[in-house]
């Protein structure tokens, strides 16, 4: 058990004993993870936020049912997945991606860098907000089964086994879906990355703008 886990176990014990204010501290490191889990399934930022709040409230009410042999974060993610799925069932729009709700972007104006070799300077690539926006849309447009695996593995850093458990699939299914998700994203984003190259030399060793 790592230090973080034992710290959480202690917090959970104290919260169960009545120090409910400590619940804030307990969940604070997991807010992003829970929100992104809900967003991966629901698509809408507003609904994902509401589902994330509901997840935390359910976690508080059911804290006693948490078993310390699992990780607290994985337990929270499972609650978030259940919450999001039950909302999807209720709204009967499971397969409809609400992309409209994602038009609100963050961070303002940005001057794109003219990169000569993006492979060697990812930090500069990262500074381009339109690239991040392109990645957001590409992830949002992944079919749900791939998006949920990608979200848990690559955004939230759950390992293969934790992801498999949370989603109720085998480790092999996780690996296959993750591979496909990454390749779909790569395919979607490479043309976008190419536009930032210098005309000197392209991704595959040829001039792009000749």
């Amino acid at each position, binding site marked *: 058990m790592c230090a973080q886990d034992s710290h959480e176990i202690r917090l959970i014990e104290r919260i169960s*004993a*009545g120090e*409910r*204010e400590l*619940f*804030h501290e307990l*969940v*604070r490191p997991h*807010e*992003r993870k829970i*929100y*992104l889990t809900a*967003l991966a399934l629901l698509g809408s*930022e507003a609904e994902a*936020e509401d589902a*994330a*709040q509901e997840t*935390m*409230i359910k976690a*508080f*009410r*059911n*804290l*006693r049912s948490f078993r310390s042999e699992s990780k607290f974060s994985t337990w929270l993610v499972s609650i978030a997945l259940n919450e999001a799925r039950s909302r999807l069932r209720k709204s009967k729009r499971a397969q409809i991606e609400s992309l409209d709700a994602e038009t609100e972007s*963050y*961070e303002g104006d940005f001057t794109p860098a003219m990169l000569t070799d*993006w*492979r060697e300077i*990812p930090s500069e*690539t*990262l500074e381009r907000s339109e*690239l*991040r926006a392109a*990645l*957001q849309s590409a*992830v949002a447009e992944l079919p749900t089964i791939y998006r949920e695996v*990608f979200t848990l593995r*690559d*955004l939230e*850093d759950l390992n*293969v086994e934790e992801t498999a458990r949370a989603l109720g699939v085998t480790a092999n299914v996780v*690996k296959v879906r*993750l*591979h496909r998700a*990454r*390749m779909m*994203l*790569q395919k979607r*984003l*490479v043309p976008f*990355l190419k536009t930032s190259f210098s005309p000197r030399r392209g*991704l*595959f*060793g040829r001039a792009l703008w000749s």
Partner: protein
Amino acid sequence: MELNCKHVWQYISEYIDGSVDPQLRLQIERHLENCEVCSAILDSTRNILYLTADDRTFALPIGFSERLHARLEREFATIGGAEPSDR
């Protein structure tokens, strides 16, 4: 055994995660040394993952944390005793 490009692509994801066995890893690395196409695919995929892991790419909405903790406070306030209970 010589790996061809398509073969390498199948293992890109597991290669990145370090979950291919050492022998296959060596074969992939040998291929990558001589194949610019596969190296570029590997690099671009890695960069996408690097971008994904950046907190700014998938950020929380502004004010998310404040609203969450305010809602939790309201939840606590509805519970009279020290124990979480059904309402």
